[in-house]
């Protein structure tokens, strides 16, 4: 069959890290190619290159026999590449037809350029029908389900005469029957000669709809599976397989009693999934899982940012009700959030004021803040965390990522934590600072703190945790003890292999 897209030797570096290294693959007309890889394997970068958002450092992209060193967004669109993103880029306040033809509206009334809604709807109708959509083009997008919205996105791609539709995790929030419909849509696209790149962590679905699968690992295409080789086991085997260097520091003593136990805990994000998990004193429990598996939402419920939808928590053996963040904080249950700049710190505030914020009343006499006491505590934290700054009066926003994270940590360390939930504690931090954060975490655990570390970084999860819980679609899919740690096991749990096998049986 004729090749539509051919990528050869694609390389992209960000500073010293290599995001893509000599990536090779091709997609034929009407083919559905699967693209799989772990978090951070380079899938997003590859998509950005194909979309013309990021220019590669080396390599060629050949589309319909025309070679390019790099693409612009306009070139990418003009050559027939379209994207259906995980976060849909639709205007909820407009109709489906208006979204499909946004920027290319049909007009009437000559120079008045009035919108011709009737023509828009008439043009949208066959596109939606082609995809098997069951809704009118005149419906508001806000009234559509997620699966229907995806159809609008795909219809938009078709209206642009796309020859290749790239779908990034399109099924991650769909129900079973919606997923079936989407896979059917992909088959229809193939039949009409439109190619698809299907990026997914749901390996069973990849197997169902793709005849060939490219596996990315650390920015390289490590395997191109075909025909009967396309099995979840094969994909997992190729997705992992690098040597992880160990950064493990053994705990000083065995883990203690259950500090925080969750039973049947449900979050608004995945209302039907229940979490059962116990954090022990003196232990670092890694929480692995794919992006979107509900780990951050769980952390937010523990910290009282969002209310639990159901279930219960026990703290040190006693019933725990967290209705507001202050309830959790009062018991020593603290969250170092993933979004450091947005939720962890007030960037314009000095370091000292950030450190004392959650416990400011303790620094006040007759409700007036004692600035000397405040900077005393901040300086003590600065010493113990080896914080690099000109002084604790420096604005937190002026610090490096690693030092900002230390300030976000110092907030809670200054008030003796019992349970510390750390969401992606080292994201965007350089190697040296990472190791320091790990050292601090181990010290805390050895002093009896229960630590829940949410991380998408395999090396970190395996290297730092004493036990690993793996989350899949809002549930704890399994818990591994140190002897059982392997990237393969974690990944299998994270993509829900066991659940899927059962469902298939």
């Amino acid at each position, binding site marked *: 069959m004729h090749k539509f897209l051919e990528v050869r030797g694609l390389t992209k570096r960000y500073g010293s890290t290599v995001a893509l290294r000599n990536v090779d693959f091709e997609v034929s007309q009407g083919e559905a190619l699967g693209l799989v890889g772990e978090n951070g394997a380079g899938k997003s970068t590859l998509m950005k290159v194909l979309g013309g958002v990021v220019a590669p450092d080396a390599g060629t992209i050949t589309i319909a026999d025309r070679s390019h060193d790099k693409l612009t967004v306009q070139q990418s669109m003009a050559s027939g590449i379209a994207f259906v993103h995980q976060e849909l880029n639709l205007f909820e306040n407009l109709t489906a037809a208006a979204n499909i033809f946004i920027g290319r509206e049909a007009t009437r009334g000559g120079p008045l350029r009035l919108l011709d809604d009737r023509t828009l709807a008439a043009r949208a109708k066959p596109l939606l029908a082609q995809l098997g959509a069951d809704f009118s083009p005149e419906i508001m997008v806000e009234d559509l389900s997620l699966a229907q919205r995806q159809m609008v996105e795909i219809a938009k791609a078709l209206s642009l005469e796309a020859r290749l539709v790239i779908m990034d995790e399109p099924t991650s929030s769909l129900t079973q029957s919606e997923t079936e419909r989407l896979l059917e849509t992909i088959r229809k696209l193939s039949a009409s000669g439109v190619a698809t790149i299907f990026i997914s962590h749901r390996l069973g679905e990849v197997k169902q709809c793709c005849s060939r699968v490219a596996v990315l690992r650390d920015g390289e295409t490590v395997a191109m599976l075909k025909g009967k080789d396309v099995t979840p086991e094969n994909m997992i085997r190729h997705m992992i397989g690098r040597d992880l260097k160990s950064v493990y520091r053994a705990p000083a003593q065995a883990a203690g009693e259950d500090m925080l136990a969750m039973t049947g805990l449900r979050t608004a994000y995945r209302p039907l999934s229940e979490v059962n998990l116990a954090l022990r004193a003196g232990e670092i429990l890694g929480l692995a899982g794919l992006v979107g598996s509900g780990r951050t939402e769980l952390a937010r419920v523990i910290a009282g940012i969002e209310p639990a939808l159901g279930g219960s928590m026990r703290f040190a053996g006693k019933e725990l009700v967290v209705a507001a963040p202050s309830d959790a*904080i009062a018991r020593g249950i603290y969250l170092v959030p993933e979004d450091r700049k947005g939720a*962890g710190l007030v960037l314009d*505030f000095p370091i000292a004021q950030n450190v004392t914020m*959650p416990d400011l009343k303790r620094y006040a006499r007759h409700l007036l803040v004692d600035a000397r006491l405040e900077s005393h505590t901040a300086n003590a934290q600065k010493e113990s965390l080896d914080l690099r700054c000109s002084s604790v009066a420096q604005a937190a926003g002026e610090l490096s990522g690693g030092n900002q994270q230390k300030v976000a940590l110092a907030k809670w360390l200054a008030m003796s934590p019992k349970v510390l939930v750390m969401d992606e504690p080292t994201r965007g931090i350089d190697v040296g600072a990472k190791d320091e954060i790990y050292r601090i975490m181990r010290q805390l655990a050895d002093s009896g703190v229960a630590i829940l570390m949410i991380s998408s970084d395999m090396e970190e999860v395996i290297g730092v945790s004493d036990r690993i819980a793996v989350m899949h679609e809002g549930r704890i899919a399994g818990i591994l003890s140190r002897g059982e740690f392997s990237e393969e096991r974690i990944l299998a749990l994270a993509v829900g292999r066991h659940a899927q096998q059962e469902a298939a049986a």
Partner: protein
Amino acid sequence: MNRKDLGLLVLILVVGTIVAIINPRFLSPINLSNTANLIGLFGLFSLAQAFVIISGGIELSSGSVIALLGVIFLDLVAAAGVPWPLAALLIVALGGILGLCHGFLITRMGLQPFVVTLCGLLIYRGVARYYTDDATAGFPFGASFPWLEWLVAGRSFGVPHSLVAFILAAVALAILLHKSVYGRYLYAVGKNEMAARYSGINTRLVIASAYVLCGALTAAAAIFIAMYTRSISPSSHGNFYELYAIAAAVLGGCSLRGGEGSILGVVLGTILLQVLQNLVNLLGIPSSLNFAVMGTVILLGVLADQQVMAYRKRSRL
């Protein structure tokens, strides 16, 4: 004193000097005393506004609150014969309750501050006019409340008591805003509400309390202003006062995005606005241009500040 406040002070001194040179009457005791009185009156509710703006909100109903509470106060004291200290207390409490309503609608019902207080602006003005039958409210002939008049509209050693009240309020509020736990929370909530929430701060309570404080302080200002004008025509009393307050706060370094500003800045902003008003009178500029002069100066001031900031940022890189 930060750089912004210093710039504002310099601007006030420069404008004042120029006006004094052109028209020496600017420095006459009568003129200074009158201007000081106006600074005191406008300053009280400008300080109130600043708290709401720092919380990240806006209070558009100040002028209408001043009209409504003004007529109620005069009615209570002059017609209903309520002892004035009790009436004053009632009015301040009522102002706090109105603020509480705003705070409730904003933090619990999730309405936008602009919308809530815009509705307040319309409602209170309408109620004030209905309450008085659209007639001018005032004291009956010969009525006299010497203590009340001395306290809120009198002078000691030529210093109007409204200015004294303003200075006392400014000092108290400066301590509250710049030194207290509450003040720190207010800045944190205004600057990054999410980070404040993650730190366990009850952000709704902090925001709502800013409106309560604003309402109570505006009510106090309403009493001072009512006793200054001594008669209130409810359709025009206090018109545009919320805009004076917002202008003073913005001139004084408050950002409408919240989390920025100082009491000293607001005090200086109020002074500058009143000096400008005075300038229009003294320099023989047609008084119809009053607002135009004020608007131009604010625009230039904010523009200059923006440019200086951008320049400093560039030179730091």
